[in-house]
């Protein structure tokens, strides 16, 4: 994973180069460059279109906002907040499913379950959106009323409970279902790579299965788990349609998860506002898109950092 295949040839032997090598290295290089060019093109477009938005006047912003940053701030909060809530739900579930498949389930069950989980990834987000708005939201609404009535002293559950259940918590559940297959599939692969000798050694020391998992599988898979979670986070940050359909949105910073006024995400806000926007409001929306672009970059950079740090120490 870490060493690149294109190592310099040994000094002594003269390298043999066949046409196949040239063609393959050429196409590989082209593929690598193409993705960089595409990324650069997106960045140039976003930056170019965003510049007019930075000096936007109060009249061109939605009512109640006077500067671009004032408008973008709550959107950034909403994007990160919804994604984090989704991860809080999805990560423990995914780890559980992945461990069940890799270490607990009989092989036949594991295979079937793996297929089903992977199929979840193939469901288009519009279907999740429809499911969220027509099935999940009405279903969870009574539970929200319950939480609000009896656990209202927990800050998250206070406020005026939504009558339709279309809150950020419902969105988080939908997002969790959407990121679950990604995290599960990656974690499962990682857990299966645990060296058999380490597992056997743990058993030899008298460990139960859970203790074996704790002392050999989880430490071995730490880097993999982190990168799986980060991939899931990236998906949750950028998800548009399901959020736009399910959420009752507002451009606010709010930690209440059961009310009708929910912080909306950048992607959903663009999808909702773009069709009827014109003039500089389009630039404002594109500028929020640039902000999302930057957030995703930061998340990826953080993930890389964490992965490289944890994988150094993993064999201690």
């Amino acid at each position, binding site marked *: 994973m870490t060493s690149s295949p294109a190592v310099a040839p040994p000094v002594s032997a003269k390298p043999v180069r066949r046409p196949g090598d040239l063609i393959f290295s050429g196409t590989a290089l082209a593929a690598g460059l193409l993705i960089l060019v595409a990324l650069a093109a997106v960045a140039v477009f976003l930056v170019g279109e965003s510049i007019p938005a930075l000096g936007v006047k109060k009249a061109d912003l939605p009512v109640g906002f006077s500067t671009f940053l004032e408008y973008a701030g709550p959107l950034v909060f909403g994007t990160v907040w919804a994604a984090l809530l989704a991860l809080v739900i999805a990560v423990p579930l995914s780890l559980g499913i992945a461990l069940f498949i890799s270490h607990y389930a009989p092989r036949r069950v594991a295979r079937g379950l793996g297929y089903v989980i*992977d199929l979840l990834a193939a469901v288009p987000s519009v279907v999740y959106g429809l499911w969220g708005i027509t099935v999940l939201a*009405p279903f969870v609404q009574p539970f929200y009323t319950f939480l609000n009535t009896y656990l209202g002293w927990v800050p998250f559950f206070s406020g005026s409970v939504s009558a339709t259940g279309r809150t950020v918590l419902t969105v988080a559940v939908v997002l969790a279902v959407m990121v679950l297959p990604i995290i599960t599939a990656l974690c499962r692969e990682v857990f299966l790579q645990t060296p058999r000798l380490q597992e056997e050694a743990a058993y030899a020391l008298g460990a139960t299965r859970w203790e074996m998992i704790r002392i050999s599988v989880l430490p071995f898979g730490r880097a993999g788990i982190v990168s799986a979670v980060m991939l899931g986070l990236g998906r949750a940050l950028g998800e548009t349609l399901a959020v736009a359909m399910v959420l009752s*949105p507002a451009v606010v910073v709010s930690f209440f998860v059961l009310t009708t006024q929910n912080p909306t995400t950048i992607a959903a806000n663009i999808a909702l506002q773009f069709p*009827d926007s014109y003039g500089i409001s389009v630039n404002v929306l594109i500028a929020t898109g640039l902000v999302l672009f930057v957030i995703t970059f930061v998340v990826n950079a953080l993930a890389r950092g964490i992965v490289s740090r944890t994988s150094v120490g993993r064999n201690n």
Partner: protein
Amino acid sequence: MHTPSKGIPLKHLRASLAIGTALTAMIALSSCASNESTPAASGSGSAASSTGTLSGQLNGQGSSAQGNAQTQWIKDFQTANSGVTINYNPVGSGAGRTAFESGGAQYAGSDTYLSDAEVKGTFALCNGQGIDLPDYISPIALAFNVKGVTALKLDATTIAKIFSGKITTWNDPAIKALNSGVSLPSTKIDPVHRSDKSGTTHNLTDYLNKTAPSVWTAAGADAFPFKTGEGAQGTSGVVAAIKGGNGTIGYIDNSQVGSLPVAQIKVGSTYVTPSADGAAAAAEAGTVASGRDASDFAIDVNRTTTDSKQYPITLISNLIVCKQYKDPAIGKVVSAYATYVTSTEGQAAAAKVAGSAPMSAALIAKVQAVAKAIK
């Protein structure tokens, strides 16, 4: 190190990837197919006054409220004029106007008429300026879902207070005062507004701003101005939200109400139910914005009317065209299309498929005169 003995993973992953790809491909293909269905065939017979000599291609963009009506009009018009191809893309009113002004579309559909600034601007395809022709009128209903309540009367101030969050329960004295004899529950009110920009929102907020300015302080706009209540995407999203909760009320195109009960609105001293006739009367009685070309029908509905024949929360959507096109060939086709759309038959066709309110005969006569004169 040796390879793990529970060796399912790779093959497994590949198989599931293949399934995923296949599914994605199927979905992509099927959506392509549904997009390609041409609205050319199967006309409704009573279509467009055929001249038979027209040919050319028009691209229109704009209002999604007009979407269904435009599809029907295009179908009928193309049946009568086989040499003409028209495409209408319901991208939204703002995007439609921008496309028309920059020359990307030969006509636009817009829930709001051209602003003063836009009229003074340039129109890439026109000699002179663009004009608004009303072609789609629709009453906006306030639909609600409150257990045990089947009829509701509201006035502008109360509606403004409900949607701005100043009235929070259904048994509020202000609502009780308007609905004597109805037993109203203490359920919380969950007012549902559009979370996307919309001409429907523009009309409701304009109505509230003009009739209850002390409560509704924000001017009419496509985006809902207050941070109160619940947002939902599109008319269908609002309908789903109203149906999905108890104590909800929302504003939607009257044709989309379905089985939901609808509030009566106080006009003058009586309560009016949204209807096609009320909307047509409101459009006919509306005032044309001043300082414009005589052929520009930028109609403002009189929101503060006291005439109970009119329903004041009415949306007038316009066909935005050039009075004179730089290319006379385009002008000829647009004129024929606009003439059909604003004709009695065109209005009846829209009413049938989209549930809009046909324009009154007097308004049709005025608009037709302009549509026929497009060059």
